[in-house]
C-alpha cells in the first residue's frame, strides 16, 4: 500500500511538475527567446503618417508593461565619414540595448549626446577605435555640389558586434540626429521585443494598429515562427514524458493492488461469506484505491510544484508562478489513474470464492 502511495505520489509529482513547467515554458522560454532580439516591427502606416516618438509611445501603451521587454525607435540617414558614404542610425540607446540584448559592445554604450557607437566592419574601414573621434557630415539629398553640409563630431564609446548589417552602421542619439539633419521627429521603424507567443503577438499587433493609426505593426516572422516550433516540440516532449510516467504509475498501482488482493483473499472470502455483495467488495477496494489516489495526488501536487520550481530555477533562472488549477487537476488525474489501475485487481477480488473459508488451509 505504501509502495502504491509512493508510486502515485511520484507520478503525481511528475505530472504536476511537468504540467506546471508545460504552462510556464512559453513564458520562461519567451523571456529566453527575447535574448534573440525584437519580434515585432512598427512602421509608418502610410508615407505621410505621423510616425514619431509620440506615436510609438502610444503604440507601447497598447502592450502590457510586464510583457514589453524593450522598444527601440530608429531613424536612418545617409551621411559621410572620411568621404565614405555611411548609414547613421539614430536610436534610444536604452531601448536598443533592451530590444537587442545579444548585441555585444566592445567598450561602452553611448550615454549622452555627442557620443556614438560604431559597427565593427565600419570601424575597421574607418580605422577608428574605442575612445576615438569621428566627423559625420550630413548633406541634404538635393544639396548642390559645393554645399559642404553640416558636420558633427562624435566620441566613439564602443564598437558594436552583432553578426548582422548593424556592423556597418554608426549609432547616435535621436537628439544628435535631429540637430544634424533637422529630420523633425519622423522615424523609420521601431523594434519591439515582447514576451508573448505568436498568437498573443498577433493580437497585440492588431491592437496597436487600432490604438495608433499612424503605426502599422508586424511580427518578425522568422523569429516568431521558430519560437513556436521550438515550443511545440518542447511541449510535445513534456506531454510524452508525463504520459509514460502515468502509465508506469498505473502499472505499479495495479501490481500493488493485485498483491493486496492476493494477500487479503481470505479476508475477502470471509467478508463475502458474511454476506458482502460484489458491489460492496468493489466499493471497499475502489474506495481505498481512490482515497490512495487522492492522497497521493495531493502529495504529488505539492512536491510537483517544488520540483517545477527547482527545474525552473536551474534551467531558466527564474521562479515559477503557482497555478491553482493544477492542484485539482493533479488530484483528479491521480484518482482517475488509480481507479483505472484498480479495475483489474478489484475484478479479481470479486472472483474470490466465499467457500474458501471452509477449506482447511
Amino acid at each position: 500500500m505504501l509502495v502504491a502511495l509512493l508510486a502515485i505520489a511520484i507520478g503525481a509529482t511528475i505530472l504536476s511538475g511537468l504540467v506546471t513547467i508545460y504552462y510556464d515554458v512559453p513564458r520562461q522560454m519567451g523571456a529566453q527567446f527575447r535574448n534573440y532580439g525584437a519580434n515585432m516591427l512598427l512602421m509608418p502606416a502610410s508615407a505621410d503618417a505621423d510616425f514619431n516618438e509620440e506615436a510609438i509611445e502610444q503604440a507601447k501603451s497598447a502592450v502590457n508593461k510586464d510583457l514589453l521587454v524593450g522598444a527601440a525607435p530608429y531613424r536612418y540617414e545617409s551621411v559621410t565619414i572620411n568621404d565614405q558614404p555611411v548609414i547613421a542610425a539614430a536610436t534610444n540607446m536604452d531601448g536598443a540595448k533592451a530590444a537587442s540584448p545579444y548585441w555585444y559592445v566592445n567598450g561602452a554604450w553611448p550615454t549622452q549626446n555627442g557620443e556614438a557607437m560604431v559597427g565593427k566592419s565600419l570601424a575597421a574601414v574607418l580605422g577608428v577605435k574605442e575612445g576615438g573621434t569621428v566627423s559625420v557630415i550630413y548633406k541634404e539629398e538635393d544639396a548642390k555640389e559645393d554645399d559642404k553640409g553640416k558636420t558633427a563630431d562624435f566620441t566613439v564609446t564602443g564598437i558594436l558586434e552583432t553578426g548582422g548589417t548593424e556592423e556597418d552602421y554608426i549609432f547616435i542619439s535621436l537628439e544628435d540626429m535631429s540637430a544634424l539633419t533637422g529630420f523633425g521627429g519622423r522615424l523609420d521603424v521601431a523594434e519591439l521585443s515582447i514576451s508573448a507567443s505568436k498568437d498573443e503577438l498577433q493580437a497585440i499587433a492588431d491592437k496597436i494598429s487600432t490604438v495608433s493609426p499612424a503605426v502599422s505593426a508586424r511580427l518578425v516572422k522568422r523569429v516568431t515562427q521558430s519560437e513556436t516550433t521550438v515550443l511545440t516540440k518542447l511541449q510535445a516532449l513534456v506531454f510524452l514524458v508525463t504520459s509514460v510516467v502515468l502509465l508506469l504509475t498505473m502499472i505499479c498501482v495495479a501490481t500493488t493492488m493485485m498483491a493486496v488482493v492476493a494477500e487479503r483473499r481470505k479476508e475477502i472470502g470471509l467478508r463475502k461469506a458474511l454476506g458482502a455483495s460484489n458491489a460492496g467488495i468493489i466499493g471497499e477496494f475502489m474506495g481505498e484505491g481512490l482515497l490512495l489516489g487522492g492522497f497521493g495526488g495531493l502529495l504529488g501536487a505539492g512536491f510537483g510544484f517544488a520540483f517545477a520550481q527547482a527545474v525552473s530555477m536551474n534551467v531558466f533562472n527564474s521562479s515559477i508562478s503557482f497555478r491553482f488549477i493544477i492542484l485539482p487537476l493533479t488530484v483528479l488525474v491521480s484518482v482517475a489513474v488509480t481507479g483505472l489501475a484498480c479495475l483489474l485487481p478489484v475484478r479479481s477480488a470479486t472472483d474470490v470464492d466465499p467457500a474458501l473459508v471452509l477449506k482447511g488451509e
Partner: protein
Amino acid sequence: MSLLELKNISKIYGDLKALDDVSFKVEKGDWVAIMGPSGSGKSTMMNIVGCMDKPSLGQVLLDGADISKESDKSLTNIRRDKIGLIFQQFHLVNYLTAVENVMVSQYYHSMPDEKEALAALERVGLKDRAKHLPSQLSGGEQQRVCIARALINYPEIVLADEPTGNLDEANENIVIDIFKQLHREGTTLIVVTHDPEVAEVAQRTLVLEHGRLAKEIVNPNFKD
C-alpha cells in the same frame, strides 16, 4: 414444513461424486452433527447448505424455497440474512478488534451497533476481551469471537465446520456449552465434526461416507 430439506443432492467434480444423492431434513431448533472420514463430502455439503455453492443435482429447500437454482447474488443475500457461519480456522480479520470483527457481520447485514456486538461477546463470555486484536486472543477465545459473529444477526441456521478442530479439551468444552445454550434458546445448529464428543451432545448424527449418507444415529444420551 421443515426449515431445511435436501432432496437427492449430488455434487459432481469431473468424475468424482463429492456428494451422491443425499437427502435429509432439519427442523427448526434441531441440533444435528455431521460426521465422516476426510474427503467424505462434509464441507461440500456445508457449502451448499451455507449458500456458498450450488448442487449439481437435486433441490435444497430453505424455508420451503428452492435455493439450488438461485443466482450468486441472491445466494449472497440469503446467506447474509439466514446463515451464521463458524469456521475451524476462526477467520477473524486480524487488524480488527474482537468487537469490530463482530460488527463486520452487522455491517453487511444492516447497521454496525457496538452495544449489540458487545452483548453478543458477553453471551460467549468475552466481554472483557472486546478491544483485543485476534493475535492477542487464545484459539478458544478467537473461536468464541467467531461464534459471537455468527450469532449477531440472529440467523435461522448456524453452520459450524469443525468448530473445535483447532481447540484443546478445555476450550472444546466451553464451545460445547455455548452450543447447548444456543440449542436451549431455540437456535438451529448443524455441526460438522470428527470428534465423537462433539457429535454425541447433538440430537442426532448424520454419517457421510464417499459422498453418501451412510447412516443416521439418534443420540441416546441427548438431554434437552
